[in-house]
């Protein structure tokens, strides 16, 4: 369904954020992308959703296709119309709009305008908390509710592939479990998911297949179940910091030393 081949992305002239990344999301699948801060996860999603130009980024090699159609370098609105919708890192709901208006904004990119009401009813059925708060301004929602709204808003356009960027960021463990349930539900309804996460336990629990990004490259790629308990996984990603202390090469130290950028 989604095919990313040998993708390289840079910001401006100096920053090479992705180097030859290849990745595939099969129809109906949930694929996780793991990696530490600055590994290039968000950049990968921006390349798919067409929002790199908003960050002075560009694709300098490789290709992104969705059901055979090229997505690379297309307009974000065309990509949404093709059936690929992104939920940005840090929720980014429209705080001054009501919950209902946020959902309406999410439906603007939909191809079929008549299906909007149906989409809204379906979304409210999936997220009853949002239905209760439909006329409230989004900034008054709790962090967990805002994350649910961000996902719900993304579902309004009726995507066939949903891109989720760190949906568990800053949420309490109980709410992270709810997010995981929502991902499973979305997948069960037939929408494929590309899930970017730092919470490896959650991501591996809900996904079929997982990739680990490090320094803009795919460091590891396995079925999620296999990766969940593997020593390799611990070495490449989970235990990277501890491991680095003893035997890291300079480049790897750089990888884990990247600071999280402020939102």
């Amino acid at each position, binding site marked *: 369904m989604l095919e990313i081949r040998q993708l390289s992305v840079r910001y401006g002239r100096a920053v090479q954020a992705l180097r030859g990344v290849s990745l595939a999301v099969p129809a109906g699948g949930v694929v996780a992308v793991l990696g530490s801060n600055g590994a290039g996860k968000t950049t990968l999603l921006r390349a798919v*959703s067409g*929002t790199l130009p908003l960050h002075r980024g560009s694709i300098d090699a490789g290709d992104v296709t969705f059901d055979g159609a090229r997505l690379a370098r297309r307009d974000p*609105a065309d990509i949404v119309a093709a059936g690929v919708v992104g939920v940005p890192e840090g929720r*980014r709901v429209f705080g001054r709009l009501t919950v209902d208006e946020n959902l309406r*904004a999410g439906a*603007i990119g*939909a191809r079929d305008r008549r299906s909007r009401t149906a989409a809204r009813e379906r979304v409210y059925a999936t997220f009853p908390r949002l239905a209760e708060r439909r006329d409230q301004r989004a900034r008054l929602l709790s962090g967990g509710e805002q994350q649910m709204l961000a996902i719900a808003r993304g579902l309004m356009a009726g995507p066939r592939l949903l891109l989720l960027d760190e949906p568990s960021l800053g949420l309490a463990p109980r709410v992270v479990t709810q997010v995981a349930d929502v991902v499973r539900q979305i997948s069960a309804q037939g929408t494929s998911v590309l899930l970017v996460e730092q919470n490896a336990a959650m991501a591996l629990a809900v996904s079929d297949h997982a990739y680990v990004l490090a320094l803009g490259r795919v460091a590891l790629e396995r079925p999620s179940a296999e990766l969940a308990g593997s020593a390799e996984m611990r070495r490449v990603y989970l235990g990277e910091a501890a491991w680095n202390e003893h035997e890291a090469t300079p480049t790897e130290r750089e990888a884990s030393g990247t600071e999280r950028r402020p939102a």
Partner: protein
Amino acid sequence: MSNLVELVINGLSLGSIYALIALGFVVIFKATEVVNFAHGSMLMLGAYVIAATHGRIGFPAAVAAGLATAATVGLLIDRLLVSRLRRRSHTALAIVTIGVDIVLGAELARRVGTEVLNMGDPWLDHTWRVAGFTFPVSRLAAIAVALVLIVAFAALVRYTDWGVAMRAAAEDAEAASLMGIRLGRVSMVAWVVAGVLAAVAGLFLATFPSPGLSATASTTALRAFPAVVVGGMDSLSGAVVGGLVIGLAETLAAGYSEQLLFLGRGLGDVAPYAVMIAVLLWRPTGLFGTRELSRV
């Protein structure tokens, strides 16, 4: 007393014209973050087309032509300049609009020359007498038309797809484009709507008690700038409130300038700026805005 009532009506009328100018200015700023310095000449262009064509095609058709021309110029500025330079800084774009303003304003001033053009409106200097008060019909028409346009505009912003898209994009352009909202279309409609509002304002600024359209019309429009600042750069309701406040302040200060002579002459011209500075000292973002002028 009758003087006060008449002044208030005149003030509200001037204020509603300022509100139309301010609304156009704010909607462009919200949708594109561009400060449109060409707003005054868009306004004057609309008024000029009405003045230049009403003799041949009649007043209603001339108004339609004036609105359409101003809207087209808004569209052209958006398509030829804003959409191409969007990725550059907003400061660069603001400077480009200064360039447009200079070129368009100079050409219009050259065409009008030293004349004062009649707008061909049906209100002339007719007045309406009621309960001992006298109101110029053109002022009442301005209030009525502005009210209709403001309500229509509010409905557009609140209920249409474009309105939701514009408010979403104003808050977070990247998140909006992830939803498939076309930022280019949001911007285009904003420029067209602003052109229409400016042309209507231009018409009423050049009707009674103004003697007609003169070469200085585009600078008269700059008086709406304090209205924008008072209301807040990014607030549509602020634009309306700011317009009314400034219109009232200007008219009342001019009307009572005899009694207020101790404050100096030309009080009507100074009052809008005095109000603006007072509001800025109290609230740097304007009454309803979220952005400080210095950060724009």
